[in-house]
């Protein structure tokens, strides 16, 4: 076969053009940096909201205008992710149409879950909003920390929406069969675990910044999430390794142009090392806060590169595999 197109891995105009006339595997080039940032922010936003509540850390870690810092980080991340998504559309002013095809499109599911999360979680914390020393929404009748019935109901709805927000980017990639590397439940699982680990680490960072001690249990949770992520990534790397399309993706990740970034930034520094540091931190109380901060930095970098490299190794296999005589 000729060596044009995806095999070269190049992204120049000539390759984009020649890809359309070559039988070779073809690299997807439509989703890249913007989508990686969007995926990361969405995972982080939904995850920080959930982690703050699961770890019972919404109170006592500071606030912005009365709203817990943890929730503010969550809202900012999701709003920024949504803004990047809209800006990346070919026709941003038509963004509202993304809500239409809820029947089959994961992007529509994501759009709805983003909206529901922002509205419901926003409503949940609204009574805590403090402007100029007064709390204008204090009388809304529910507790922003979800300790009463109405507050708990809002918290549950927001929590479910947050889980969808954390997961749907992976589902968008995993559902179609076009790109074998993406077409696996391992991809949404990786994104969910990565989002969870990043989010717990960010909440622990906020805890350290607020002068509160990180507990051994929190570090164990972080270590388990990192370990789960490592297993999910490795299992995906060792299954269906010869499938057309996926073989090229794996080659690029493990032996080709992304090898250094994938092995070091994602596998080692972004997953395995934080897992080790988290377990060490659980045992060593004196170094726990420092290790939590280090883990946070490593996981954020690793989570972003996991998503970016997943997008960049999205390779369509050839539309036809010629018989032996035609090769």
């Amino acid at each position, binding site marked *: 076969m000729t060596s044009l197109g995806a095999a070269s891995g190049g992204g120049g105009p000539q390759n984009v053009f020649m890809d359309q006339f070559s*039988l070779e595997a073809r690299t*997807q080039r*439509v989703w890249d940096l913007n989508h990686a940032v969007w995926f990361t922010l969405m995972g982080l936003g939904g995850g920080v909201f959930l982690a703050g509540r699961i770890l019972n850390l919404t109170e006592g870690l500071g606030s912005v205008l009365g709203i817990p810092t943890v929730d503010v980080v969550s809202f900012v991340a999701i709003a920024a992710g949504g803004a990047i998504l809209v800006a990346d559309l070919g026709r941003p002013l038509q963004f509202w149409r*993304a809500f239409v095809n809820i029947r089959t499109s994961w992007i529509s599911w994501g759009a709805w879950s983003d909206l529901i999360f922002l509205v419901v979680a926003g409503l949940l914390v609204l009574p805590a909003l403090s402007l100029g020393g007064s709390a204008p929404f204090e009388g809304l009748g529910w507790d922003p920390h979800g300790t009463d019935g109405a507050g708990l109901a809002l918290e549950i709805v927001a929590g479910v929406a947050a889980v969808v927000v954390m997961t749907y980017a992976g589902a968008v990639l995993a559902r*179609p069969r076009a790109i074998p590397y993406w077409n696996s439940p391992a991809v949404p699982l990786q994104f969910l675990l990565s989002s969870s680990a990043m989010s717990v680490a960010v909440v622990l960072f906020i805890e350290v910044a607020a002068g509160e001690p990180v507990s051994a249990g929190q570090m164990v949770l972080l270590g388990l999430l990192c370990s789960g992520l490592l297993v999910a990534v490795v299992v995906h790397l060792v299954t269906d390794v010869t499938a057309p399309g996926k073989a090229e993706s794996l080659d690029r990740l493990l032996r080709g142009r992304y090898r250094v970034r994938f092995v070091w930034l994602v596998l080692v520094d972004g997953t395995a090392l934080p897992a080790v540091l988290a377990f060490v931190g659980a045992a060593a109380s004196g170094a726990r806060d420092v290790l939590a901060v280090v883990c946070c930095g490593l996981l954020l970098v690793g989570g972003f590169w996991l998503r970016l490299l997943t997008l960049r190794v999205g390779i369509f296999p050839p539309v036809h595999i010629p018989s032996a005589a035609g090769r």
Partner: protein
Amino acid sequence: MTRWGMVIDAARCVGCQACTVACKTENQSPLDAWYAPVLEWESGEFPDATLNYLPVLCNHCEDAPCVTACPSGALTRRDDGIVMADEDVCIGSRACMTACPYGALHFFEDRGTVAVDAAPAGPEQSVPERYAHQRHVRGAVSKCTYCAHKIDFGIENGLEVGIHPLATPACVVTCPAECRIFGDLDDPDSNVSRYLAERGPSEVLRPDAETLPSTQYVGLP
């Protein structure tokens, strides 16, 4: 029920790319977009080396992953099986492009390098480029429609679809090797069904994707 489909006899293709150009002329597709290219690859070694050709286009799948992935509902499958892209409804998410195993969807990127609305065309903007901008929506996705406008015209005017040149996709009409046959896959007396009965069974591209394509092949290398 009518189900329009195309049979491509790859063994007949001579790689002239006339279909590619006819499609571009008919549909005035954006400059980077080729709805019906002919793929090429080499096989064998000198002195027995060969160039092989494979004409491709939208497969108009019965279980179309582009339709499933599209968040805006811009991509739809008509009752006659043709998958259409409504560029006015498209938001440019490009989810369809990552979902299609065949690379059949094309994003009309606004690169901002030409005065697209300026008339008449100047040296900074070619005539085809101006036509593309007039016919297609910037920031939206477009695709092969089996020349649905010609099919609809043929039906409205009592012409035989797949036979009369005004009621047949441009790539089929122009193919000098007659390697493309278009017609109703559900009609056992149609030209495609008769061709398949004679030359079949047919194959599809990327069978692993399980999309049930309406574009089928015989004579694949």
